[in-house]
């Protein structure tokens, strides 16, 4: 096998599409794991003082988790579209594979960064509800403002995949 044959066999359209699905899951999942982790650490510090606030802290902690779900949703749409579940995986051209790979990038990249930033806002929200338990709504809203961009990224990732 020559080197160019090796490259040809590695970079098939189908493989590129799978790479896209993998990136969407990996990056947004990493971001969400980090974001949820940041909030969890802050929440535990608060729960030392007042364990009854667990319900409130859990809502805040769950918020940065959505990017991971968005990445997962995009990945699932891609593998469904290439027929992985139906058993006969489509032979995509390299261009088609690149199309799906490119489509996965918005949620992969924006998901990664926005989940971490959202985690930091939600962690700050934890210190807000430590002192003022009644202000959970504001803490949630602040964190949700960050998520807007992940949602846009999801839309821009999903639409090309759905129309594929």
């Amino acid at each position, binding site marked *: 096998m020559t080197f160019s044959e090796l490259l040809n066999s590695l970079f098939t359209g189908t493989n590129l599409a799978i790479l896209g699905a993998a990136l969407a899951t990996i990056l947004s999942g990493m971001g969400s794991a980090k974001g949820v982790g940041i909030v969890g650490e802050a929440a535990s510090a608060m729960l030392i003082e007042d364990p009854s606030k667990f319900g409130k802290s859990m*809502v805040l902690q769950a918020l940065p988790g959505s990017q991971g779900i968005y990445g997962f949703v995009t990945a699932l749409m891609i593998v469904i579209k290439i027929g992985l*579940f139906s058993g006969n995986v489509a032979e995509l051209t390299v261009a088609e594979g690149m199309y799906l790979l490119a489509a996965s990038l918005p949620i992969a990249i924006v998901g990664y960064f926005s989940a971490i930033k959202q985690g930091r806002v939600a962690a700050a929200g934890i210190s807000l509800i430590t002192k003022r338990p009644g202000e959970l709504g*504001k803490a*949630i809203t602040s964190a949700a403002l960050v998520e807007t961009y992940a949602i*846009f990224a*999801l*839309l821009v990732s*999903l639409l090309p995949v759905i129309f594929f």
Partner: protein
Amino acid sequence: MPVNTMKKLSVVTLTKETGDLMRALQKLRCADICRTAVPPSSEDEREPAVIYDEELAGLPAVDTAAETTALNAHIAEVGRAADFLARFETKKKGLFTPVEEVSFDDFVANDEAAAEETVREALALAARYDAAEAAARDTAAELAALRPLEAYPLAIPEDKTAATVTVVGTLPSGTDVRAVTDSLDGLAAVLEKIAPVDGGTAVACTAYHGDADETLRVLTACGFVKSALRAGAEDGFAAGRVAALEAALKEKEDELDRLRAEASDLSQKLPLVRTLADKLDTDAARLGATERVKRTEKTVLLTAWIPAAAQQEISDMLAARGDAYEITDPAPGEEAPIQLSNNRFASNFEPVLAMYSLPRYGTYDPTFVMSIFYMLIFGLMFADAGYGALLSLGCFLIIKFMKPRGSMKSFMMMFGLCGLSCTFMGILFGSYFGNLPSTLATTFRGSETWIKPLLFDPMNGQGPMYFLIISLVVGAIHLSAGLVIKMIILWKSGDRFGAIVDVGSWLVIFLGIGVYILLAMVIGVSGLAGIIIAGIGALTIVATAGRAEKNPVMKFLKGLLGLYGIVGYASDLLSYSRILSLCLASAVIANVVNLLGTLPGPGFGSVVGLLIASLLGHTLNMALNLLGTFVHTSRLQYIEFFGKFYEDGGRAFEPLTPHSKHVVFK
């Protein structure tokens, strides 16, 4: 909807009447006893709900410190008694048991003394129980330590004969007993292993009296610790002591069982104790409010906010008591607390408003308009008939059987109503737990499902585009509603010109854009009419946005700059594309769950697969997307809608009421 009108109540009564007055007000549940303060120098420093009065603010407040301290100590006692009894409660309160209603006066008159007596009994019992438990623990520990030595035939820890002394103790684990024996070489001593014990090996060392001290020194250097246990000849040595301890432990456990039975009997009266706890918290709330009452030498002066609707009731009560009182309107610059009043439908959405911030006193309460858009947007974001029906069913069942109160009940009603909206949207867009009907049909019958979306499927063909358009149209209507409210507020405040040119012209622009889209893109004729309408709006803005400027050049430039506001509106509008995003996110996961469930193919495997996938997958999907939908529907209200007109910063009306945690006081 405006917020409820508030009145300011001032009452003067004799010092000894303070308690009775406060009790009467607490019973009526409609007076928010407020702090009085010296008027601040600037308007900005004014706080909502504070009553400003130089004269009153200078007076000392009623001193309740001693009473509060005593009450708090008593509350802690009752709490301890309730916690103790709860440990032995045989009939646990079910999840669905509604909270009991109790008449406050009846309780104070008939049951309070009995409840106090129960608390005393419970505390005495708790002390006896704790002592018995500690004794049983000690006995059990001693027994556990002594049991390995049961066969040891001499006195513990020391047995002397005329010539020798035998000491029992422990060598730490890991010590080589033979090495210790070696180190005793040259001494008239014998080391004997008895048994392995917790933390080491029990050994007995016998030595002649002459060498005893030296032997003990060598042993101690090896880590030997003399046993702390006691079992002498009079006990019958270790075996006798073990038997005695076993008997004692049995006796103590029997005693504990008796105490448990007694506590279990007493726990029948736990509801009474809990009612007492609520009653005492009610007293504490009243004392807390009393701290805000001012006093002179012989009288007290109380100021409170009351809803105008409760004016008559309070006047009657005060007149009957013979107190001097006055009910006035809020002074200029004073902001009364906020009591929202909405119809039965919209009032369920009040907590959403409160989560953001209450409106300022005298401003517009948008709950009703918001609640309609809330249901609509929630339904679109989570458009699924299966999830929606489950949500409604769950919420309505909780209301029916658990009878939640206050904002919890409102939230349940709200989610129940939103669930209906999701169900309706789900039928429109053909989503029942995602694509479950078509998955079932293709898997088990190999055919198409007969359940078709009434409108279109947002997951297929041009569906996403159509759904995006619907999302943006809903957004445009939502934003316009916000602008219309702003226009009405400005108009009513007297700034009619501002209402028309600053807000109205934007509405004209949007109308123009709407007409253009309708004509040019949907119908396919010339959209000139729309452009003309939008142009009129835009020209109005350019002509008027700079009207505060004197210089005509600046006037024009500021006018042009006013048009830049279109960027803000465009980004607001695009924000509504999240409706499509979240709808797709929940639908895709639901479809995948169905797909995974039916992977085994037609037959029994798919039945099991679908059951498992539904229980895990659909539950998880529903939980995750409910949170997302709730958060983002709220966000669209808070940022995009409220941003157009809302004046926040009100303080909630918090009347002095009986405290209800375990029971509801009537």
